[in-house]
């Protein structure tokens, strides 16, 4: 995974709460056995007027002009501003894969579904939690000024607004660390292989029926 330190990018607002992973990447795209190529299908049912399927050439599909990401002023957005409980629903990692492939590197919301937030930090996306009132205010600022960009400083855990305001955000420390260093988590865990083996040996004694 690529490391993440700071990023300054355009903010796109998605003003609904409980955005679920079925909406982020509908199930028909889960049939892929690849990790990439999901970007064109991000928010497929909201973004296009027709029904999407894997393998379609999305450049020819009719766009829904009302969907926020289709509006010219948000083209090239790298930061998504969202509401409560973003990423709820299924555990599909295809959701962060699609967000990343589309170009998002950070999501700001008052809260995230657990599994989704986890999946983000494993895929180069910063899930930044800010208080509800702050998020509310940011929605207002984004709407008021075209080309609204913020800086995400992961090291300091801050969102820096164009007005120079620094907003401290919450993120899981382990996930943050992995993002900062671009770590291979499996490799990290395998450094403790001896401890795992010792634990396993003890468990085999105590609960032998779990080993066949």
């Amino acid at each position, binding site marked *: 995974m690529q490391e993440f330190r700071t990023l300054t990018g355009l903010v796109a607002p998605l003003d609904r709460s409980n955005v679920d992973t079925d909406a982020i990447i509908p*199930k028909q795209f889960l049939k892929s056995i690849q990790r990439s190529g999901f970007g064109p299908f991000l928010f497929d049912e909201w973004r296009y007027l027709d029904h999407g399927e894997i393998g379609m050439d999305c450049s020819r599909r009719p766009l829904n002009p009302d969907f926020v990401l289709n509006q010219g002023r948000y083209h090239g957005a790298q930061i998504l501003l969202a509401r409560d409980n973003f990423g709820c629903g299924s555990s599909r990692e295809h959701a962060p894969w699609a967000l990343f492939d589309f170009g998002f590197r950070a999501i700001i919301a008052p809260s995230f579904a657990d599994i989704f937030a986890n999946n983000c930090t494993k895929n180069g996306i910063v899930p930044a939690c800010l208080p509800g009132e702050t998020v509310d205010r940011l929605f207002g600022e984004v709407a008021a000024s075209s080309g609204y960009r913020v800086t995400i400083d992961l090291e300091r855990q801050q969102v820096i607004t164009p007005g120079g305001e620094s907003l401290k955000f919450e993120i899981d420390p382990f996930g943050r660390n992995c993002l900062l260093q671009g770590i291979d988590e499996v490799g990290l865990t395998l450094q403790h292989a001896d401890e*795992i083996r010792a634990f396993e040996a003890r468990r085999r004694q105590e609960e032998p029926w779990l080993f066949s």
Partner: protein
Amino acid sequence: MPKTLYDKLWESHLVRCDADGTCLLYIDRHLVHEVTSPQAFEGLRLAGRKPWRVDAALGVPDHNVPTTDRGKGIGDPLSRLQVETLDANCAEFGITEFAMNDVRQGIVHIIGPEQGVTLPGTTVVCGDSHTSTHGALGALAFGIGTSEVEHVLATQCLVQKKARNMLVSVDGQTGSGIAAKDIMLAIIGAIGTAGGTGYVIEYGGEAIRALSMEGRMTICNMSIEAGARAGMVAVDGTTIDYVQGRPFAPRGAEWEQAVRFWQTLHSDEGAVYDRVVRLDAATIRPQVTWGTSPEMVAPIDGRVPDPAREEDPVKREGMQRALAYMGLAPGTPISEIRPDTIFLGSCTNGRIEDLRAAAAVLNGHKIAAGIKRALVVPGSGLVKRQAEEEGLDRIFKAAGFEWREPGCSMCLGMNEDRLDPQERCASTSNRNFEGRQGPGGRTHLVSPTMAAAAAIAGHFVDVRQWEN
């Protein structure tokens, strides 16, 4: 210090912990299905790694499998490739698999407990959010993403932080005709879909203790719909009776030893929870969701709410959007909503008890003229066989239901079982999200008996009056 059940399960699986609370948790059981595993196996191969412990894993295809004639194989080439990829990966790495035509095949969360693969006191993971189901056996069970699937395959561990403890206590007795599904929808209605975020929920109280294992699984299954990653119920006689004799359960002296240990798997007297929610079981009525989130739920004698009366603007807009999507007007009595389709199945309500309950309502009746189609999709091949032995299939077929092969089916419509745009479905599954059962499809979540009664009446009815 007195401990909660979650504390006990957590502590007994800790391999190591860092000062900031980041821990390595040992995983006893890893269930693998075709949708969230291909990229994980690919990752293993690319890194030149081998699975840590293959005997802890079990593979099964469920999301993509057809539920009609399987003799023809899988028609959709993408679905076929995904299922074949699972077959090939399990074969390559030496993981036991119940392949599509094995009678033991079924929805991953149905077959784990059914086979005794899920046992009390274990940690159970699967690349699927409804892994919370397995917590009904007194296990710590939760869904993971594909990177974590790879992590567990390679290390038998996961990097985790401890969640907070929540007790949801359903006190007293439910009225007759109230299903586990109604209890759970009422809980979600009370705490909201983000109410359990950051917590592990333990379900307790007299009404939970009174439930069968099937009912407890229905409850734990939808923990994720309440925002909690895991849900659990303490071990008692019901749990132990359920596990005894299952193919992968311990036997003989090991069984005795296991039972002694399992009997300690409950929260200690005086254990402290970070949050306690109490519900009075007697007040729970049959539930029907009216919107596009499981918290948008009302009792059968209620009405579709009016967004104009909601003060929070974000919520109001969410309600308006949901009603537009669902094609419902504010104030409509729930009992006047007329489904086109009935779906009985899924990991929430695809177990034998669910089919028995629905069949009891349907027995001797026919589905209403307005119902376009009605499907029963048993949760596993063994549930299907059991139901056939009991003659339930004949009741369903006589009533006008289609009797299908086991799988996820119309719960998410990755195979060909999906709703058409605007088609309205009374579904025993767990998610009523936009497009969940098919693009534009409209889902109302209900219990199996409520779905069966709606099939006969042609609209939602109070199954309690139905029984009289």
